[in-house]
């Protein structure tokens, strides 16, 4: 019965920015400090205090807007969104209602190998609320205002998403972009990227949107997917039973994996009574300001991906891993400039450097091997001086411990340079063939696949030093004679 329905999803993503200070005052924004130690008269909402916008908040918003192809609104103002809650000391949140800083734009997602462009409605600047802790005492809620006033960007998508998988991909792309631009750490578990999901269902082929429900408290990518799946099924089940969907705000419970908690019905919907924030004059952006930010944007993930797959001829799989974050992408780009063998550069990063960093709990920043050494390492394999298996397993670990040594020098010291000398190889090949006269007979009768067996034996006997191409040639000469 579910096949009859189409799911329609729009997402509101709140991104907490990586600024040093808050949106409208100089309070520290570091995570994990003692409660109520990062506050000021402004974030505490004392009367007579004046908020002043943080330049970095505006710059982050414009950067994200430009990266997502939005139209940047030059005449910005702030508005007050009024509601009473104990973790909102002023009684209103400063946000942008009528003139958001970014309009339109969008981002490409990829689901099951199909690309889709998800349009954005808007991005606006606002401030976060404080934190309420309800479970310490049955009588009291405890209020910590360290988070009150931390700068946020709210990214609102059009209702363009049609499945939980698409929503998952979309959140992932937005997260990669805010990390790429270095404006947020995008960590959903720590709450620096939060997502509200607006979900409705309708019969396929119809165009009228169904009544939607908003799901809050989705705190991981996986939970977003599960919450959407659960909520869509809940709505379809009601419709199939002849019922109607009520417009509600519901909460996702990760432990129970359901959206059965109703936070608000339509009747209790907030009346926010927005009005212009009179305490802050308008923020007017010039064309030059926007152009400068545009010029200084890093190469974006999509452009990187294209460069890697089209020009460098890497597989989509490799390109995807290398464009996961800007640091890896730039690391690859620097290395690829020093070697012709792009595929080898990609392999070295993906299959060796990344696992080395993981094993040692390090990041690329901590990796201090010179790019010239990495390029020499690749060249050493390409020229057949060392097999790639030996290079990866034996030489790489020594090289990272001795970053000043040349890779070839290490190979020599460890006695791992491959030997293509005919006399050296002939002797081993002869010995191997003499040890397996029965296998030689079978080979001569036509079972040519045994060449692999002989190769293996020569490698064993030479302790990996026999150069494979010459060995192979020599083996064939002797066997086919």
């Amino acid at each position, binding site marked *: 019965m579910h096949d009859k329905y189409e799911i329609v999803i729009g997402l509101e993503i709140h991104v907490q920015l990586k600024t040093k200070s808050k949106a409208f005052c100089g309070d520290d924004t570091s995570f994990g400090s003692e409660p*109520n130690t990062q506050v000021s008269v402004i974030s505490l909402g004392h009367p007579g205090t004046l908020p002043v916008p943080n330049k970095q908040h505006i710059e982050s918003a414009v950067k994200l807007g430009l990266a997502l192809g939005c139209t940047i609104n030059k005449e910005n103002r702030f508005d007050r969104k009024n509601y009473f809650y104990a973790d909102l000391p002023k009684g209103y949140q400063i946000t942008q209602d009528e003139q958001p800083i970014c309009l339109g734009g969008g981002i490409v997602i990829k689901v099951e190998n199909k690309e889709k462009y998800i349009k954005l409605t808007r991005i606006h600047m606002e401030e976060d609320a404080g934190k309420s802790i309800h479970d310490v005492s049955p009588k009291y809620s405890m209020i910590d*205002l360290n988070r009150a006033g931390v700068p946020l960007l709210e990214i609102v998508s059009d209702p363009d998403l049609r499945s939980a998988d698409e929503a998952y991909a979309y959140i992932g792309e937005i997260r990669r972009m805010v990390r790429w631009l270095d404006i947020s750490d995008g960590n959903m578990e720590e709450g620096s990227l939060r997502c509200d999901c607006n979900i409705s269902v309708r019969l396929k082929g119809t165009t009228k949107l169904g009544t939607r429900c908003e799901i809050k408290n989705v705190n991981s990518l996986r939970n977003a997917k599960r919450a959407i799946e659960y909520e869509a099924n809940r709505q379809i089940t009601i419709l199939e039973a002849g019922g109607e969907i009520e417009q509600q705000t519901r909460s996702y419970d990760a432990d129970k994996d359901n959206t059965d908690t109703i936070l608000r019905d339509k009747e209790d919907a907030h009346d926010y009574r927005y009005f212009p924030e009179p305490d802050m004059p308008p923020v007017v952006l010039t064309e030059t300001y926007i152009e400068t930010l545009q010029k200084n944007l890093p190469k974006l993930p999509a452009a990187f991906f294209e460069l890697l797959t089209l020009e460098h001829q890497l597989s989509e799989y490799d390109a995807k891993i290398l464009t996961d974050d800007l640091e890896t992408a730039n690391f690859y780009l620097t290395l690829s400039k020093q070697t012709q063998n792009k595929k080898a550069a990609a392999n070295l990063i993906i299959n060796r450097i990344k696992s080395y960093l993981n094993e040692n709990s390090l990041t690329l920043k901590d990796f201090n091997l010179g790019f010239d050494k990495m390029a020499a390492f690749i060249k050493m394999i390409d020229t057949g001086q060392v097999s790639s298996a030996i290079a990866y397993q034996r030489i790489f670990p020594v090289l990272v411990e001795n970053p000043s040594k040349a890779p070839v020098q290490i190979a020599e010291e460890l006695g791992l340079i491959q030997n293509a000398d005919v006399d050296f190889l002939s002797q081993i090949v002869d010995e191997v063939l003499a040890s397996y006269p029965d296998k030689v007979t079978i080979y001569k009768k036509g079972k040519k696949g045994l060449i692999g067996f002989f190769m293996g034996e020569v490698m064993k006997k030479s302790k990996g030093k026999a150069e494979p191409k010459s060995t192979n040639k020599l083996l064939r000469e002797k066997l086919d004679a």
Partner: protein
Amino acid sequence: MEIDKDLILKLEKLARLQLSETERTQLTGDLNNILKMVSKLEELDTDNIKPLIYVSDEINRLRADEVKNQVSKVEALKNAPDKDENYFKVPNMMKK
């Protein structure tokens, strides 16, 4: 626009106030008077006039992203009606 009982009840809810019946009657009259006074403005033709939001011409009063002007936890909690050594205390909001 007319202020009636329903609107008064809604405003009470939004403002987290609980009024007595006497106060409600009095406030209904007061608010209607205020609206009547302000509605005098409707006599003017404002069709081609942009709303005035800011009385000053100032724009771009901005600050650099720097940490400053914080107050200590002790100072922050000083004027709170209820607190412990770390937090502001309010009636538990999750209780229904």
